């Protein structure tokens, strides 16, 4: 499954509580019942509307590099959680818990543990 998803990631949990999403866009496209961890290197950090994006290159089980695009909320909401334009920078080694796309595209929504260069980033809300 992990290979088929093309994920440079490990599946850390299958069942999470179904949290009601409140974003500009909903989570119809994401499997919120699944949590996947993406381990890789930040290639770009996009601090923009409608959603802040973190692009991460991660290797799948076959050693192939997969280009992930991971979204969170808008900059104002992220700021309320302690994020800023400087939270990530290209080259950061990250480990991010995400809800993956239902169609297996390498796209996800960050909704769990965030580790940047070995240090856990605690969100304020």
């Amino acid at each position, binding site marked *: 499954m992990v290979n088929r998803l093309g994920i440079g990631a490990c599946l850390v949990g299958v069942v999470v509580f179904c949290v*009601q*999403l*409140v*974003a*500009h*866009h*909903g*989570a*119809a*496209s*994401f499997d*919120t019942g699944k949590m996947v961890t993406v381990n890789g290197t930040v290639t770009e950090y*996009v601090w*923009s*509307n*409608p*959603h802040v*994006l973190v692009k991460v290159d991660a290797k799948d089980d076959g050693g192939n590099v997969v280009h992930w*695009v991971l*979204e969170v909320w*808008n*900059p*104002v*909401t992220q*700021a*309320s959680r302690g994020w800023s334009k400087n939270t990530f920078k290209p080259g950061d080694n990250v480990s991010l818990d995400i809800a993956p*796309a*239902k*169609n297996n*595209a*390498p*796209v996800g929504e960050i909704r769990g543990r965030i580790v940047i260069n070995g240090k856990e980033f605690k969100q304020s*809300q």
Partner: protein
Amino acid sequence: MARRLVVSIVAVMASGMFSPLLRAQDEKWNRIPPARATYNGKKPSGPAPRRTLAGIWDAAQALGVNGATEHPALFPGGRGAEGGREDETGIAKPLPYTPMGLEALKKNKPSGPGVRQVDSLLTNDPAGKCDPLGFPYMFLWELRTLNIVHTPKQVIMLSPFYGNYRVIWTDGRKPPADPDPRYNGYSVGRWVDDYTFVVETTGLLPKTWLDHAGRPHSDQLVVEETYHRVSGDTIELTMKITDPKMYTEPWLALNKQPLHLMPDDFDIPELLCSPSEFAEYNDLVAGPVVRDPSKK
């Protein structure tokens, strides 16, 4: 060489001395309202001033992601946010649609969480194209922090979310009889007592949505807002929707929704809808994740 070194050291020291000051200055900008939980159990306090709403007010991001707060497009217990339904049958607090209203509802495809949610790329939500939200959509979705200004003949409401603003005339004029429709309509307001301000808005563009769940309205929509200043630091906002073409009876979209007073130097962060940024988002996220590629 020595002189250059001294200059460098002084510069470093100076930056160290002034950086806390700079940080303190920066803290005055892009202020983030308190977390919603901060307001839990809050009691309105302080005497309400007479006949004014002026100030900066925070709605605690409590409004309308799943549709109008009083009628979220969710099943009992908050279930159904993942969407997949064509109509709202079975939601906890159903709306009184007319047959025309129900048909209009089905044509609107919302991307926000709710029982009718679709993939982001497949929505026809005006917000999905950065079109103007119009009123009352701007208040029934993402009403975050609101700057209310009084002039002798107007109450002006500024919402930095998507750059929305409203002008409410208080000079005694009547609503226009047969207006050209506008995104924000035509608003007139009056004080019915020293602490209660009532606004009536008509002439709204039918192509806009009522809320983020895709609730429709017609050219007959009348929105009545009641701003009740219950204390120095709290307004309760109630919004009544009347639209006989779409709904068999009036209904409340908001019912005593609290607005909390912020400090008068509170700088509200900007949150605008940029078509080019939205296009990039669609290219990078909304497009790749759509579940049926034939619908791209």
